């Protein structure tokens, strides 16, 4: 089949590579800054095991092409595969609306993007109400992205389960046909309605966010009880009923998938007056947690931050990303500015986005070199745990900083080690 995959997400690349590998003709539509564009230049920076190799192989075989996000699907395409970022719902509607009038009667749109609940049905409606088109032709189904970073490719090709939300029988059968090569050991497709599949994805994200916020709550308690949260985390994770995943306390999570828009039900459902109380609270705790390092700094310096120089390592909402959507660094920087501090930031990839967000200001300096950023600083905050930050040259840092104060928002450094190196150390739930 001819399949057009849209999106800059990890999910888009994994789906495109995996589908091409089973013989489909796949065009991957990405924006100019998309990581997939860097495949040939050798700077493919996504450290996802096997993904770059598979994508290169499929390109060589001629089954995978990478083209522009704004390019419309090839006329031979009969499957439109949407793995867009959560903020591109409007673009998804635009893509569906601009499909030709005479599409194949069994033209399939697979929505793999994390959009609010109800979006797949809304896309279906957009598709059916195209001017001059036969409303019986085509279908939109929901196949939520359930990938785990670091094991994404395997997660697709050997998935333990698939959620497939389809209202129309032929559409469900067609999805099963596309997934057949990845669904061999046993039938692991779980069929449901589109909004049920979307809701399941929301519930999964909600559960993960709840675990993180719960751990952050525990970490804040650990702070005042003189308990090292790391030991607690390992002890909890060892309990099989709980497991190890998503128990890392930190200075808040960002990204679009956890934004209020996505975590809410679709606007059509909002008027029911019901709200997800726990999720609302979880997001609230997370917003507060983003200022955790600020609060520690504020107390360390007895509420006097005016004129201080503060360094932030990591502005992206997660490592390996150039995006800063809802990133904790943004709240920290705003809080520091309001108290008259000067902020110096290093990030391997997110500085352009940060510069665009901040505009021209005297109290923000962006650095290409992490040590340069820390020179003369009264505090160093580690906010995004890029691998390069895990074992810095502490001796050099100590020599170049004005005050040897480390605020570790991701608990990546060893408190004992850095204290021996002469630093004052604050982690999240550990000192």
């Amino acid at each position, binding site marked *: 089949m001819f399949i057009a995959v849209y999106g800059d997400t990890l999910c888009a690349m994994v789906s495109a590579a995996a589908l091409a590998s089973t013989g489909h003709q796949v065009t991957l539509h990405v924006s100019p800054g998309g990581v997939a564009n860097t495949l040939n230049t050798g700077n493919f920076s996504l450290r996802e095991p096997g993904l770059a190799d598979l994508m290169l192989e499929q390109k060589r075989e001629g089954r995978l092409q990478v083209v522009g996000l704004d390019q419309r699907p090839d006329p031979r395409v009969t499957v439109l595969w949407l793995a867009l970022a959560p903020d591109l719902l409007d673009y998804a509607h635009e893509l569906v609306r601009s499909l030709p009038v005479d599409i194949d009667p069994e033209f399939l749109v697979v929505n793999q993007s994390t959009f609010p609940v109800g979006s797949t049905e809304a896309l279906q409606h957009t598709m059916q109400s195209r001017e001059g088109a036969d409303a019986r032709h085509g279908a939109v189904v929901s196949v939520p992205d359930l990938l785990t970073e670091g094991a994404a490719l395997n997660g697709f090709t050997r998935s333990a389960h698939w959620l497939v939300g389809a209202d129309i029988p032929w559409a469900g059968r067609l999805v099963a046909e596309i997934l057949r090569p990845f669904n061999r050991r046993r039938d692991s497709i779980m069929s449901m309605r589109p909004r049920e599949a979307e809701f399941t994805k929301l519930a999964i994200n909600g559960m993960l966010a709840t675990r993180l916020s719960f751990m952050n709550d525990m970490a804040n308690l650990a702070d005042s009880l003189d308990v090292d949260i790391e030991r607690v985390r390992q002890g909890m994770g060892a309990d099989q009923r709980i497991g190890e995943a998503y128990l890392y306390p930190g200075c808040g999570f960002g990204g679009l998938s956890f934004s209020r828009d996505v975590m809410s039900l679709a606007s059509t459902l909002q008027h029911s007056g019901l709200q997800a109380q726990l999720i609302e609270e979880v997001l609230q705790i997370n917003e507060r947690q983003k200022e955790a390092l600020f609060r*520690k*700094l504020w107390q360390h310096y007895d509420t006097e931050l005016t004129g201080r120089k503060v360094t932030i390592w990591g502005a992206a909402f997660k490592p390996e990303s150039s995006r800063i959507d809802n990133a904790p660094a943004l709240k920290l920087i705003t809080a520091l500015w309001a*108290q008259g501090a000067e902020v110096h930031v290093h990030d391997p990839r997110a500085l352009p986005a940060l510069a665009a967000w901040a505009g021209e200001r005297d109290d923000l300096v962006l650095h290409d070199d992490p040590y340069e950023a820390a020179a003369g600083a009264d505090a160093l905050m580690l906010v995004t745990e890029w691998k390069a930050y895990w074992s810095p040259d502490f001796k050099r840092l100590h020599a170049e900083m004005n005050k040897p104060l480390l605020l570790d928002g991701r608990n990546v450094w060893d408190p004992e080690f850095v204290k021996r190196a002469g630093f004052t150390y604050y982690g999240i739930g550990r000192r």
Partner: protein
Amino acid sequence: MWRVLAEHANNIKDTHLAQFFADDSQRFERLHADCGPLLFDYSKQRLTVETLERLFDLARQQQLPEWIDRLFGGEPVNSTEGRAAMHWALRLPEGASCVVDGQDVAAQVHEQLRRMERIVNKVHSGQWRGATGEVVTDVVNIGVGGSDLGPQMMVEALCDSAAQTSSRLTVHFASTMDGSQLSQLLRTLNPHSTLFIISSKSFTTIDTLSNADTARCWLQHTLGDKPGVLHCHFLGVSSAVQKMTEWGISEEHQLQIWDWVGGRYSMWSAIGLPIALAIGMHGFRQMLAGAHLMDEHFRNADWSQNLPVLMALVGVWNTNVLGINAQAVLPYDGRLKQLPLYLEQLEMESNGKSVTRDGQPVEHQTCPIIWGDVGPNAQHAFYQLLHQGTEAVTCDFILPARRYEQARDEVTAELIAQHELALANCLAQSRLLALGDAALKDADQLPIYQRYRGNQPSSTLLLDELTPYSLGALVAMYEHKVFVQSVIWDINPFDQWGVEMGKKLAVDTLAWIRGQGEVSGVDSSTAGLLGRILK
């Protein structure tokens, strides 16, 4: 002059209001005036155009024009305390020139407004931090009298003009010396995210300082005794800079007012900080602009069109000539619930005096008893007395013509209908009070206990809408009304010696209650009560 007025009154006092209206279909046209967003209808008062001319003569005889000049000239019109009363200067627009005794008053006023603005912006952007770095979400204004009534009334009245803030922000008020409000608030508030405003012109008010001490203790119990606690959780507003500093308010968190601002005239100054926190600085400046409009109107408008002058003289006519000693303030808008309380202080603390400016006992009645409530609720309470009691009472009806029109939610239509219902009730009540049975069909068929005497005079203040601008103008109008009446009665409206001595007596009494010293030299009632308390 008083004799002339009395004679004139003799000619018309037997004329029922129903008759006045029957005789003159143009009565409303003749007896109303407006200023910006306010319309003042006094055609339901028991007077004629001729009455007004006599009242204007009285005002001239009492040198009203000269007194207005003194007020706006910054002269020490508060003679017993040797101070000017320049609340009007708080409302001067940016760049206005006002130099009194070599001080550029306008510049000082705007400097404080800018300080307020910095504080308001910091709180609104979620960047005012408590001692542990938490965002402040609750602000408690601790103050009493003028430092409480005005701000609280305004914050409640302007709830529909609330400013957008980045996180939740709630403004609370604590006033009474027994800690009633504070004890309730401290139960629910989080010390980490609560900011207190200690608001006291003298910074010696025992009610306020005792509440402030309790608040400080509550904070230190949780947050410890670090200097950051006072710094981050307290703002001070006062004219006594030294005393604020001694109490522990850090210098950059002090806002200043001046000797020339009276407590009950002070919500336009930094005392109004809770208002600015609630409606934002833009709203606050709108409120000042509305009041400034009224200041200019009062100074410049012809008396026949001058709202404060007309309102004051109508009041003098009622009090001194018709012998009506009670006045009800009846807003037909639940947001104005606190307005009667505010006006009780403004009028009764200002003009509840019985000594003239040259130290003689007054020869005429001064301020009547003023009370009130939200009109629709008062209909179920004391309106019975208004309609069928034996007391003559004059009423001020206050209502906005439009409401809920900007709201866009599922019950907008229903709420507009409720507003219309309130409007209808207001007009119906004032009509029935004025006309009595004449407002009814076939009243003479009814039993006597269902009849209405009528002839109760009232004025109606119609606002286009309740906004910071219109409410600013309304309150300034009452302020100037009070001033005009004080001129007619030849009393000083800006002091309040009557509230001082009780505080002093309480000092000894407190010692007795705490078991320090023998109870002596008191009346048997006080002694008896003390005995029971100490039992």
